[in-house]
């Protein structure tokens, strides 16, 4: 066999130079695929080889996939796949040792490309990190070549460094994906929920990994707003993916109209099917602004904190079930708590109250003491984060604070001319009257009268197309005045069974004035709370 003269074994200086080329800091900034190509090009030069290739182990199957090549670029283009244990690269991987072939004609090869391209000699080494196999790197020569022990050592040394760089790049890539996924999952515009103030904070424990903390707030019906926080066990891409499914499932079951305990039970059964990685704690609350209550379902999560309008803070007693994803048979209960207008509910993940050194009770008590104070909910969140979420925190922290502010007096609202908003107008007006301390009987009459004026504005006042009408309400000195304005002309409904609206308004209110003008109609309804209700059809 014709063997070309042995290359001079690399001197120590050469080894150092070679390693520097592989561990070059600038490589760290390359995208994963470009990094592989750059590594393989440099390996080719260092060993003065004609060809070089890098194959990585498949994530789920015992296969090597060609990912970068020099001199045999078709390896990658053709998507060469080598089973572990078979062929040259497969043997290097299976035996996890350096293998050299001086004469390819004598060897069993899986990949015909190597012979097609006229490769005569091959040297392959495994890519290992802490004993884990990442793949195989090999160099080839178009002329017969006997690789020296020094060259074999050098390639293994280079491969060890390359393996570290490849693994780091893969982790960075995964982290980047997980972060993008989580950013996408945490709602950006929670201010879209009408009549609700929301403040949120998300603080990852470290830059290196993304957690499974998640929050959401959305409106189910005009009278019910969901605010929820969850914490998926684990980190990284898997946790972010579970979060995505949790968020979608919660919203879907909630919108279907299931009671909250059932929403949580359904999500639990789904999480159980997703496997052990889906274990999640969750606190799911439904705010009812009009009824001034809060319904709470807790699945193994730290207790919600309520701060009432007078600044009293209370941790809701935990009546919770077990975390989601633990048992498909778990059931959950809903507890109702008073939630007077102007109260704030604060939901958070355990990273906020758990430290490495203190019992949980201390963290909870610190939270309870810190939450009340001057300013709105943004200020509250800032205060809490500053006091509780220190630099040395062990875990991610997510928190969401939600407050239903009192309705203004005077109140001004605008509505689309669609009869389906009538229920929403009533809901809002009932709440406003309750906040003003107006009794039930007075409130019912006022709501009916206002409803008649609104129905008329919707039904008769417009030409086709989308328009709006306004409802103004003011309470002063025991007198409630409601004004409904539109941009159309007043028309009392016609027909034997119609036309009851105006008489009803007159019977229910102390004063009814209809001002019909060119630019629109104003119906002004007034009720004196100190006088007995008007009676009869009048």
């Amino acid at each position, binding site marked *: 066999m014709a063997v070309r003269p042995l290359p001079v074994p690399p001197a120590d200086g050469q080894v150092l130079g070679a390693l520097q080329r592989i561990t070059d800091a600038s490589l760290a900034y390359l995208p994963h695929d470009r990094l592989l190509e750059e590594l393989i090009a440099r390996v080719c030069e260092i060993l003065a080889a004609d060809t070089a290739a890098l194959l990585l182990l498949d994530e789920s199957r015992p296969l090597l996939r060609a990912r970068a090549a020099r001199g045999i670029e078709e390896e990658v283009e053709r998507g060469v796949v080598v089973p572990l244990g078979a062929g040259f690269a497969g043997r290097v991987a299976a035996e996890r040792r350096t293998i050299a072939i001086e004469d390819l004609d004598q060897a069993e090869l899986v990949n015909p490309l190597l012979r097609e391209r006229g490769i005569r000699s091959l040297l392959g080494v495994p890519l290992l990190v802490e004993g884990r196999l990442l793949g195989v790197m090999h160099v080839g020569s178009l002329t017969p070549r006997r690789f020296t022990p020094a060259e074999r050592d050098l390639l293994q040394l280079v491969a060890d460094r390359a393996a570290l760089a490849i693994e780091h790049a893969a982790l960075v890539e995964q982290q980047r994906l997980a972060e993008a996924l989580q950013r996408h999952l945490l709602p950006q515009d929670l201010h879209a929920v009408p009549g609700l103030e929301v403040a949120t904070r998300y603080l990852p424990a470290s830059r290196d990994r993304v957690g499974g903390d998640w929050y959401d707030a959305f409106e189910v019906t005009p009278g019910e707003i969901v605010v929820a926080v969850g914490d998926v066990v684990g980190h990284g891409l898997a946790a972010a993916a579970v979060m995505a499914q949790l968020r979608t499932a919660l919203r879907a079951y909630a919108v279907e109209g299931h009671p909250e305990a059932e929403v949580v039970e359904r999500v639990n059964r789904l999480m159980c099917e997703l496997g052990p990685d889906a274990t999640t704690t969750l606190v799911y609350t439904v705010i009812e602004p009009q009824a001034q209550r809060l319904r709470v379902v807790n699945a193994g999560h730290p207790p919600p904190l309520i701060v009432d309008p007078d600044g009293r803070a209370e941790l809701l007693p935990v009546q919770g079930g077990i975390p989601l994803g633990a048992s498909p048979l778990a059931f959950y209960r809903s507890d109702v708590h008073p939630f007077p207008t102007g109260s704030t509910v604060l939901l958070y993940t355990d990273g906020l109250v758990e430290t490495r050194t203190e019992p949980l009770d201390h963290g909870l008590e610190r939270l309870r003491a810190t939450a009340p104070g001057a300013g709105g909910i943004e200020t509250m969140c800032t205060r809490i984060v500053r006091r509780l979420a220190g630099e040395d925190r062990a875990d991610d922290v997510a928190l969401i604070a939600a407050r239903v502010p009192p309705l203004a007096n005077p109140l001004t609202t605008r509505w689309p001319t669609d*009869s389906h908003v009538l*229920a929403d107008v009533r809901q809002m007006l009932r709440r406003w009257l309750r906040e003003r301390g107006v009794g039930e009987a007075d409130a*019912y009459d006022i709501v009916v009268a206002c409803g008649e004026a609104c129905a008329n504005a919707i039904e008769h006042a417009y030409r086709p197309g989308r328009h709006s009408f306004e409802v103004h309400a003011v309470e002063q000195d025991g007198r409630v005045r409601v004004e409904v304005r539109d941009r159309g002309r007043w028309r009392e409904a016609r027909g034997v069974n119609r036309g009851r609206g105006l008489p009803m308004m007159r019977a229910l209110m102390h004063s009814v004035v209809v001002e019909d003008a060119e630019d629109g109609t104003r119906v002004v309804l007034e009720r004196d709370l100190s006088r007995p209700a008007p009676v009869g059809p009048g």
Partner: protein
Amino acid sequence: MSELARVLEDRRGEVLVAALDGEVDASNAAEVGERLRRALGNASTALVLDLSPTSYLDSAGISLVFRLAEELGARQQRLVVVVPPGAPIARTLQITGLGGAVAIHPDVDAAVAGVA
């Protein structure tokens, strides 16, 4: 129908007892009316319209009751209404004079007895 109101049906012989649970306004009165007419069919001799669980009834809802009374009268079927004394909607029914068009009973049993 939106969940603003539900119609709960209960048959007592040839009498249909239909309870209106929820709120009736201009947005759902027509649908509620259709639901009641379908439930009634031709076999029933009378409809007892139970407004005990009705938390809101505006002029569109009240007009529906007047219309049903006319329609049923023309078909030799009877309509009576149940409104518990002191219910919030009792006053609006009084204002519109519904009592002059249909009999109003304080509870379902009395209403069924009234049409049997």
